[in-house]
């Protein structure tokens, strides 16, 4: 079949309607080939055109050579979740082109380098060969840069074929190269060349178009790890210790990167935040707890394997009542698992973390904005409660770029909790009727006062230990002393809900509830709309912290039944809620899986419909 005949045929298969700002482009490239720059640039250009867009990087645990995919979703309705089908594929990797060809929907489009030989197994897709080698050869760049600029060829061809505005491409380039004119020029020139070639040599027979919209005004584009780092810096973080681990590394690195801009004293040029790359995760948490103990707003960031190593230390911090913030940017476990893929699989681990009776305050950010917000708020909560706060992000949220409303300045003053300095100790006894003791609940609110290293008042020092201790922090193996302190810690944990973020609830007046956490909220929102289109109205509750607020119980009791949607095998949130609300004989339905990829709305809808059919006899 000739190319022309094929295109004619595809035209007939394809719906005659133009598809505008509502499709998926996947870039199949080789890891380490510099394609991230090109892909992010296209995403920014589309964003600059006012089109809602989201990007997901599916990458291997590898520096160079293995296949990697980047998926861009344009959604005029603003959906940011992953979709399972590809409309357009830019296939730059010979090793995976067959797979990519198969993944296209009928009427889809394949762009590929014209020297790439492969068997064309589909007759229902549009094929656009690109003269990558020819254009890069003609470009006036050093041979070492050719692979890199090859990516700019597909940027140019795609730009021409779907109608991305050149001005937006230029803005994205300028942003990426931070105004470095020479780099901008080199790249822009190749993009223009490639676009020109496409204009002259390719006939558009597909139906995909982009058009300027006005849906991104006031929005920014960033990833959750950067947002968490910035939030922490606005929260007054003073100490970060970390050990490299995917997908958490960029969180601590971003603290380091933005600290000079945000946390250097204007008059003295001195730094008010310390970042230490530790020798391992045991050390990272140890340093952070040491810093938290001496009164610094301290953080460590890690992923599941690192958190496993930190467990003993977190038990110490819980029992000796030391504020510290731990970010767990989750990836797929157990073991090394899928280290570059996303999951929400550490929930029950963190919920039950530690030997003996322990409880941890858990925050569950569901967007880059919440990564920023919980970035600063986590310190207020940790210092107020004098306890570790664990924030569960994930790879999808942490490492992928998201469009999001711009960051908002903290709307609450900083809460440093109950700290006593020299002058506070002078009148402590008059005020409280007893001498200062580290673990005395003098306010009868479960939270004692603490003094900090450097306090020169002779009554300030105390001895912190993970062994049994009394109200004055003295060693004790006395049963009553132990019971009393553990009882206070339990009550303190129960009181945490005064300070932690409440669930986000969308009440559509339905008898069906959907409960979710974190980044799973994005596909759930879309799934709700898809279900509504089929006549199934649902209410939504996205839990944003644990322990559970009363609102969570109320929501569950109010609904006839609830679907609990999450990205792990066992339905870990389902397990926790079932355990905590054991008496209620509630109908809680598990919708959970972990395959390394973010959930899609389509999968959620299918799962829910399947259960509806079985349980309710609805088809």
């Amino acid at each position: 079949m000739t190319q022309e005949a094929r295109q004619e045929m595809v035209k007939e298969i394809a719906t005659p309607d133009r598809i505008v700002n509502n499709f998926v482009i996947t870039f199949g490239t080789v890891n380490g080939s510099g394609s991230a720059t090109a892909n992010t640039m296209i995403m920014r250009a589309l964003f600059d055109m006012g089109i809602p867009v989201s990007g997901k990087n599916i990458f291997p645990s590898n520096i160079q050579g293995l296949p990697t995919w980047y998926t861009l979703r344009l959604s005029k309705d603003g959906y940011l979740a992953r979709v399972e089908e590809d409309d357009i594929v830019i296939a730059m990797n010979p090793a995976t082109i067959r797979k990519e060809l198969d993944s296209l929907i009928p009427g889809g489009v394949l762009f590929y380098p014209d020297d790439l030989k492969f068997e064309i197994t589909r007759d229902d897709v549009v094929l656009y060969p690109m003269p990558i080698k020819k254009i890069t050869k003609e470009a006036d760049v050093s041979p070492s840069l050719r692979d890199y600029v090859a990516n700019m060829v597909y940027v140019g061809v795609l730009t021409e074929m779907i109608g991305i505005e050149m001005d937006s491409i230029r803005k994205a380039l300028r942003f990426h190269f931070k105004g470095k004119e020479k780099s901008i020029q080199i790249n822009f020139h190749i993009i223009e060349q490639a676009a020109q070639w496409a204009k002259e040599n390719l006939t558009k027979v597909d139906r995909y178009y982009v058009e300027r919209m006005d849906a991104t005004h006031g929005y920014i584009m960033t990833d959750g790890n950067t947002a968490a780092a910035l939030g922490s810096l606005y929260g007054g973080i003073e100490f970060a210790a970390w050990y490299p681990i995917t997908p958490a590394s960029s969180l601590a690195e971003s603290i380091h990167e933005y600290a000079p801009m945000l946390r250097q004293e204007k008059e003295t040029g001195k730094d008010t935040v310390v970042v230490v790359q530790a020798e391992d995760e045991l050390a990272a948490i140890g340093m952070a707890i040491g810093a938290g103990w001496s009164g610094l707003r301290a953080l460590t960031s890690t992923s599941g394997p690192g958190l496993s190593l930190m467990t003993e230390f977190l038990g110490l911090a819980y029992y000796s009542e030391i504020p510290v913030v731990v970010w767990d940017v989750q990836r797929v476990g157990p073991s090394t698992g899928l280290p570059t893929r996303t999951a929400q699989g550490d929930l029950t681990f963190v919920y039950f973390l530690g030997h003996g009776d322990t409880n941890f305050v858990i925050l569950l950010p569901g967007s880059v904005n919440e990564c920023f917000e919980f970035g600063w708020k986590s310190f207020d909560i940790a210092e107020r409660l004098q306890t570790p706060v664990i924030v569960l992000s994930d790879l999808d949220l942490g490492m992928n770029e998201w469009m999001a409303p711009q960051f908002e300045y903290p709307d609450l003053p900083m809460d440093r909790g109950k700290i006593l300095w020299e002058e506070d100790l002078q009148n402590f006894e008059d005020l409280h009727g007893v001498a200062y003791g580290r673990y005395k609940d003098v306010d009868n609110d479960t939270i004692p006062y603490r003094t900090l290293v450097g306090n020169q008042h002779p009554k300030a020092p105390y001895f912190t230990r993970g062994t049994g201790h009394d109200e004055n922090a003295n060693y004790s193996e006395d049963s009553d002393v132990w019971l009393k302190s553990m009882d206070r810690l339990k009550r303190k944990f129960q009181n945490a809900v005064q300070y932690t973020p409440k669930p986000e609830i969308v009440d559509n007046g339905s008898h069906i509830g959907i409960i979710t956490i974190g980044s799973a909220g994005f596909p759930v929102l879309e799934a709700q709309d898809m279900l509504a289109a089929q006549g199934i109205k649902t209410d939504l509750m996205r839990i944003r912290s644990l322990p559970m607020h009363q609102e969570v119980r109320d929501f569950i009791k109010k609904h006839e039944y609830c679907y609990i949607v999450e990205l792990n095998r066992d339905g870990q949130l389902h397990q926790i809620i079932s355990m905590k609300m054991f008496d209620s004989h509630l109908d809680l339905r598990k919708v959970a899986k972990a395959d390394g990829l973010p959930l899609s709305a389509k999968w959620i809808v299918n799962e829910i419909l399947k259960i509806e059919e079985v349980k309710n006899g609805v088809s």
Partner: protein
Amino acid sequence: MALADSRVNVNLAGLSRNDYKGSPSTLCQGCGHNSISSQIVAACFELNIRPEKIVKFSGIGCSSKSPTYFLNRSFGFNGLHGRMPTLALGAMFGDTSVRGLGVSGDGDTASIGMGHFKHLARRNTPMVYIVENNGVYGLTKGQFSATAEEGLELKRQGINTYLPVDICMEALVTNASFVARGFAGDPKQLKTLLKAALVHDGLAVIDIISPCVTFHNKENSFHSYQWGKDNEAPLHDITFVPSRDEITLEDFEPGSTTEVTLHDGSLIILKKLDKDYDPTNRFEALRVLEEADQNNSLLTGLLFVEPGAKTLFDRYNLPETPLNRLTPEQIRPTRESLQEVNKMMFLQD
């Protein structure tokens, strides 16, 4: 730094020895660790250091219990087994004017926490790091530690077949800036070493052979009192001279001493015995340790010191005010700066 006369009742900080005391020891009668605690009290008293200007750290084990037996008026943190260096490093950033004093044991340092110990040294974290080394796990009732010598016999475990870790050597090869070995049964030398360590601006490691009277005190064992007393070979007599008290120098004959100037201007004076020992030569320190090992002797004294070495805190650009006393206004960036941040995130405005 001024030095209090060891015989006075009140030192120049206006404090008595009682102000440096700890709680009664719960360690075994005759434990070497108790005499170390006494010398820490004496050294701090004589250096006029306010107890509030010291922060104590320890891990887990008999040694790590000892910080409660001295300096009750100092903050202290008894953390996890082997992890003391990490807690100390983080905590000292709170207020770098407070001197860190860590007490560890041979299990803590040479086994479970070896990695942290080495990294603490590599970063030259300014603190005193004491290892109360007895070659045995006491709290768990007598198992071999990694510093136990080959061939040692213990009641339960029989004969130790592994070679020992030498903590001083480990410290030296990891670029520790102060390495000394003491013997709990030699309080005079120990106090001098502690004083020098307390004013050294960098990590000061003192490996103190501290015999376990209960589980490990066979006369022929390296970590026993009897063996230590019979085989101790002091490297040199040491005298510590605070910077503003140089008159003591007259007590020494020129030509027979080596002076080492510490960061605050104070001197350590090493009186040479039978050899021309240079404590600023790391390789020489390793050599004399190896030699002592060959000769089956216990070499004590200041093995190595590098006074000007860059410390952990030198690597950061910290404000004058301790970080833990900064106000919320000093640590929360301005509202205006957030607009800049949003622009850096490709804000569409």
